[in-house]
């Protein structure tokens, strides 16, 4: 793996696919956020992130270290299974990791594990995320699963990339009911003033891709997926995002990426879970 080299010449597989589904687009977009010299771990039920990690490892980032399910270091290329937190991911690992000591120590180092993929039940204009409660904490209208590691990870100096498979006004909201994951708080530098580095970097949804505007730190529309318009996206968003001057179409996955996903990484299509049926 470490000896893998890619040709710099253009290959036929590098051409944009003309026949891909939205899950493949999202996976491809996420994979682009992973660097060859970085490390990454996946959380629970992370079909789309795990596909992106594995796609990156098989293409531009063969040196990427993946701590599968926070537990098994760089398994030999596993096929996606019905769980992203189980033995098939760990079976061929280089090392088993102790989460309580080793993993959280390594993650605490700002040089490592630069990018973390997360989902959320609600995500707000400033990139704060809710996976705890809808309504009152003590007597919630909806009790969600809980923060797991996000309330740790999102406080550290990391790039958090949020993955939203159901972009709608109930998911993308002006203000979350509860901040389980710490974004830019109320924006305008509040996060940095509290001494926190990093923060939410990107939001990749089933409709579009956002980053965060430098000054206000509000979510900013950057690209819209082919087949959708800016107006579609705004109508599906529960707040008014900043709109970049140069909103473009999200780059399509390549032919090779789509083939890898369908034939090798996730032939069963687990990555489609959570996306709206079409």
């Amino acid at each position, binding site marked *: 793996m470490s000896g893998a080299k890619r040709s710099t010449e253009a290959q036929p597989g590098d051409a944009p696919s003309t026949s891909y589904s939205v899950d493949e687009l999202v996976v491809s977009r996420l994979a682009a956020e992973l660097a060859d010299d970085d490390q990454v771990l996946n959380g629970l039920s992370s079909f789309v992130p795990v596909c992106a990690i594995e796609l990156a490892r098989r293409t531009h980032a063969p040196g990427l270290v993946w701590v599968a399910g926070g537990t098994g270091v760089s398994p030999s290329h596993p096929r996606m299974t019905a769980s992203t937190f189980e033995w098939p991911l760990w079976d061929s690992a280089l090392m088993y990791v102790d989460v309580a000591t080793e993993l959280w120590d390594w993650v605490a180092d700002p040089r490592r594990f630069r990018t973390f993929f997360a989902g959320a039940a609600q995500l707000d204009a400033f990139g704060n995320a809710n996976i705890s409660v809808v309504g009152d904490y003590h007597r919630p209208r909806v*009790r969600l*699963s809980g923060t797991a590691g996000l309330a740790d990870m999102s*406080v550290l100096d990391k790039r958090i990339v949020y993955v939203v498979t159901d972009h709608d006004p109930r998911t993308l909201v002006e203000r979350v009911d509860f901040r389980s994951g*710490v974004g830019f708080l109320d924006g305008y530098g509040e996060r940095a003033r509290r001494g926190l580095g990093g923060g939410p970097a990107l939001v990749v949804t089933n409709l579009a891709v956002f980053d965060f505007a430098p000054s206000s730190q509000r979510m900013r529309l950057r690209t819209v997926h082919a087949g959708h318009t800016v107006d579609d996206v705004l109508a599906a968003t529960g707040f008014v995002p900043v709109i970049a001057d140069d909103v473009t179409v999200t780059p399509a996955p390549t032919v090779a990426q789509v083939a890898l996903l369908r034939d090798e990484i996730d032939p069963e299509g687990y990555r489609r879970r959570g996306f709206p049926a079409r």
Partner: protein
Amino acid sequence: MPDKVMTAAEAVGLIRDGDVVGLQAGPTQCAPMSLVRALVRAGRRDLHAVSLSGSMALDWLATSGALTRLTTAAVTMESYGMCRQVRRAVESGVVGFEELSETALLARLGAAARGLPFLPTRGMLGSDLLSVGNAHLAVIDDPFGGPPVVACQALRPDVALLHAHRADADGNVAVDPGPRHPMTTLLPRASDRVVVSVEEIVDADTLREHPEQTILPSFAVDAVVLAPYGAHPTSLFPRYDYDAAAFQAWVDASRDPADAEAFLASYVHGPATHDDYLALVGADRLSALTMERAS
């Protein structure tokens, strides 16, 4: 040294109404389900469960009415979703829910294990986990002039419940090579009493052949319960996989509280012993979950 082997019914006798019960349990992994079934059958009440990212066990305890309080970082059955019975119990106010970040929960247990009043974490700063009146968390200054941290008060479970691969009668517990759940060794160190169910009971000389596989010494263990497939329907790697059909059956049943109670009547209250439970599940199904053993 006293022989610590006992039945599950005897072992859950170490748990009293009102106890704080720590559970080793991943979303679909290595939960001491045989002990949890015995605990439900024993009719304990007012339990405070502590689990890093527990799943079906918590849902069963909530269904049985045993649960009053829960301290956790996440309640999830991974791709099977949130635990509906826990959700209902929390939303109706029957069960109190203390949500902590993962490092905060590990810090609360770690402080108890080390006999410290607290351990700090950098997590949660800026999150609403610090703004809901949790009296076990306090933002404190660094005495050396660095950034503030969150002090997490020691949380000492009365009893820890675990499942592992093997033990001897003295209570030395060992596991096969493989990933270890973060709670497996920390939780018993933090807890007053420790109950471990195991796939097999071996003699001490067998353990001496692989001291690196022993994870708990005899003095840290109060009860050893023989329970082959004792984690079922969760997995115990590398011996057997989780039972996807059983997870789905529970998810389906838990859509309706009455169905959930019927499920519990069949699968938890019905079989009086672990052997009865295994007979109910059936040898074919268990065999299908069993993985080829590494040499």
